[in-house]
């Protein structure tokens, strides 16, 4: 039992602590890299288990690569898929920094997206430079409200944010179903739940549309990158970020230092919700142009994977989101040209999170000499 002899102060260092201390190249880059490689290898095994040959599996991966970076169109698809992932990843990451686990990005995306679509179709005649920011703002506010609820409940009553956000995800899902059938939202002449179409003045313009209308990458990417920069600045350069990080690392000391835990929990969850709301808005205003049931399509959950892989660092999140965006985009190509279902991507993503969260698996597999501290964020229901 040599591992059991580690003194407690080393072993009990949580995830937040790891983030703020030594991020060396091994934990920061090598382990995530090996996690991705290992997950991809397991993916090959899976493809072969469903009756394909090794050659066919390799063809599938070639299609995956082709579909993610093989052409301008592919890169555009990758970036299009990465856009909401960056925002959802930032949403989860900033909550992690303050010691909260936001499983609610999915629901916050839905609420934010619904607000954005409403502003997008209900107002007409505005110029784009007013209408678009207005729609995005509505999306941010919608998500922020959905984040406010778990934040304030956590701060005032101690209700565990994981439980509350899970429940709010489902409530949001049902609310979307409901609203899409109301006169207010439903498209005229349709019986299925589809919202009216967003006005052109509220759409996130395709950035490369002038080259080829099929290049879907849109202004949302710029919004997401700006958000990453702002969050980085907020976390590491401002007093608010200082409070977030202090509360995340040691809430008790933060309280003794005169910080308001209530304020931090509420504020960080509102920002997290707002970011997820932006992610939902980006999908609505940049890709779908309308709302349909469950339009968040699990991006909020993928945000958890992105935040973990990016080690809750805003630029790490961007890199992880681009990787996952590539997998999503390439997965489409893989499905079409190699007849391997895109759901394989979800499996690969799940495996990546396992390996990133339990680096001991990777260090054992590759015989690395790196202390592997598993990821610990939440403190259990009972806290």
């Amino acid at each position: 039992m040599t591992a059991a002899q580690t003194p407690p102060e080393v072993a009990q260092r949580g995830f937040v602590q790891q983030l703020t201390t030594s991020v060396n190249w091994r934990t920061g880059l090598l382990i995530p890299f090996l996690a991705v490689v290992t997950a991809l290898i397991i993916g090959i095994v899976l493809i072969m288990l469903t009756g394909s040959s090794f050659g066919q599996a390799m063809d599938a991966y070639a299609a995956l690569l082709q579909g993610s970076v093989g052409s301008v169109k592919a890169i555009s698809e990758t970036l299009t898929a990465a856009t909401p992932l960056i925002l959802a990843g930032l949403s989860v990451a900033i909550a992690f920094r303050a010691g909260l686990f936001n499983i609610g990005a999915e629901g916050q995306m839905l609420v934010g997206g619904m607000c954005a679509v409403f502003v997008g179709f209900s107002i007409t005649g505005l110029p784009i430079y007013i209408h678009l920011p207005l729609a995005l703002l509505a999306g941010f506010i919608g998500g922020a409200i959905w984040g406010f609820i778990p934040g304030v409940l956590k701060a005032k009553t101690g209700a565990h944010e994981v439980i509350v956000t899970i429940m709010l995800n489902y409530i949001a899902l049902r609310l979307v179903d409901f609203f899409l059938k109301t006169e207010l939202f439903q498209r005229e002449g349709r019986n299925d739940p589809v919202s009216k179409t967003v006005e052109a003045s509220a759409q996130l313009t395709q950035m490369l549309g002038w080259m080829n209308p099929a290049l879907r990458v849109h202004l949302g990417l710029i919004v997401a990158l700006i958000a990453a920069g702002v969050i980085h600045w907020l976390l590491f350069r401002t007093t608010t970020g200082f409070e977030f990080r202090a509360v995340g690392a040691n809430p008790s000391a933060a309280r003794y230092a005169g910080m308001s835990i209530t304020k931090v929990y509420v504020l960080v969850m509102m920002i997290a919700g707002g970011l997820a709301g932006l992610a939902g808005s980006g999908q609505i205003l940049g890709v779908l142009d309308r709302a349909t049931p469950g339009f968040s399509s699990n991006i909020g959950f993928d945000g958890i994977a992105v935040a973990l892989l990016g080690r809750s660092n805003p630029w790490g999140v961007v890199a992880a989101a681009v990787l996952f965006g590539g997998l999503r985009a390439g997965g489409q190509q893989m499905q079409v040209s190699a007849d391997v279902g895109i759901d394989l991507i979800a499996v690969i993503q799940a495996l990546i999170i396992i390996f990133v969260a339990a680096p001991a698996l990777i260090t054992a597999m590759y015989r690395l000499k790196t202390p592997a501290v598993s990821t610990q964020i939440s403190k259990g229901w009972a806290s």
Partner: protein
Amino acid sequence: MELQLRGITKRFPGVLANDDVSLTARSGTVLALIGENGAGKSTLMNVLSGLYRSDAGEILIDGVHQTFRDPGDAIKAGIGMVHQHFMLVPVFSVYENVILGVEPTKAGGVLNRREARREVKEISERYGLAVDPDARIEDLPVGIQQRVEIIKVLLRGARILVFDEPTAVLTPQEVEEFFGIVAELKARGATIIFITHKLKEALAVADDITVLRGGRVVGHADPTTATPEELAAMMVGREIDLTVDKEPGTPGRTVLELTDVTMVDDYGRPLLNKVSMSVAAGEIVGIAGIQGNGQTELVEAITGLLPISSGRVEFDGADISNKSVRDRHVQGIAHVPEDRNDMGMVGSFTIKENLVLDSYYAAPYSKAGRLQRGSIEESALALVEAYDVRPPLIENTGAALSGGNAQKMIVAREFSRDVPLVICAQPTRGIDVGSIEYIHEQIVRKRNEGKAILIVSTELDEIFALSDRILVMYDGKIVAERLTGDTTPTEIGLFMAGKGS
């Protein structure tokens, strides 16, 4: 049964916690194992109870070599641990806690609850440990919880009982009762090891005393002849002089004044009961008392961490009863909290971040919500230099500092503010003697600058060394007030035990 340890050595990465420790507890006697915090007492006991495995050395019971792979082995060998932090399940009943691991069962692993209650009652009657087998642990006071722990080890047939700091959480009456229990156990032939850092208690109950320092045994003493001074010298390795060089204080205007401050818990029971007191500029007021008599709540009432139910807290003549922690901090209260790791610093933050933990929002460290990294760094460099924080590497994390240096870092943060009131709760708990002396000097220097100082300490020596005036807290009330020159430790000790006139 006689217990012998021979050459026990236990290493942790970077620390030699036990170094060739040998000792003997004679059958049917009480051995007191004394030493400062960090002397290696707890590690040694964890080795003895099978929680740790030693790197070298052996354990003998009645001359027979023992190997403990886990706590189960130690229990089988007749060793019972009563931990400082009770190992009880709060939502379980007494009997459920007692039988855990040695459950009497009927066919199919079904608990035999009648038998379980009978076993508990039998032991509790045999040793005079009154307790209701069906009471829930969380509803019981600590003294009774400790009895449950004792019944637990007795039920497992323990003949060697190890008590780790058993009196730390007890009220004076409970301490008396506890000594009665120890005598009863001894009379029935049990061998007892009593780990403590309270010299007087060791002298009162032990038949032999062994002193640990820095992981090594530095001596043995006979309680019938040894004096507290000799034991203290052995514990710290030199003649210690805890008196601090200081002139008498010159109290000026009143800085802090509490009037009839009352605080109640969730069940309406008083934590603070009509506390009135004051601290003037240029004096050190020391709050003496046994842990858990309302000192923590008093400090939290003054600093705003807990709301008061009635009464007034005045600072510099203004009522601050309803102000936030931050407001009070801004108005000029500095606070060195009682638990440095949990309350005083963020372990994963760098030293420079920890040095602005409660002033990051103010100039010159921030401007319009933006952190001014240049000023933060500059001030941090000056502070680690001025307050002798070693190593003075401001990019290292707080967690990397030793206890004494972490405390100096917190003292640096709080003392560097030029404010009228400084509150220090347990300012030197668990740190090395060098750091203690340094911090004491800083406290006196601060007073000499004309600040009002409030010290809370459970160490009576520290209270006497620093204070100009001593207040004693007992059961949420201030039960005595004396000028230091007009009283003796004996008198204050009586008040602390709730027995003063």
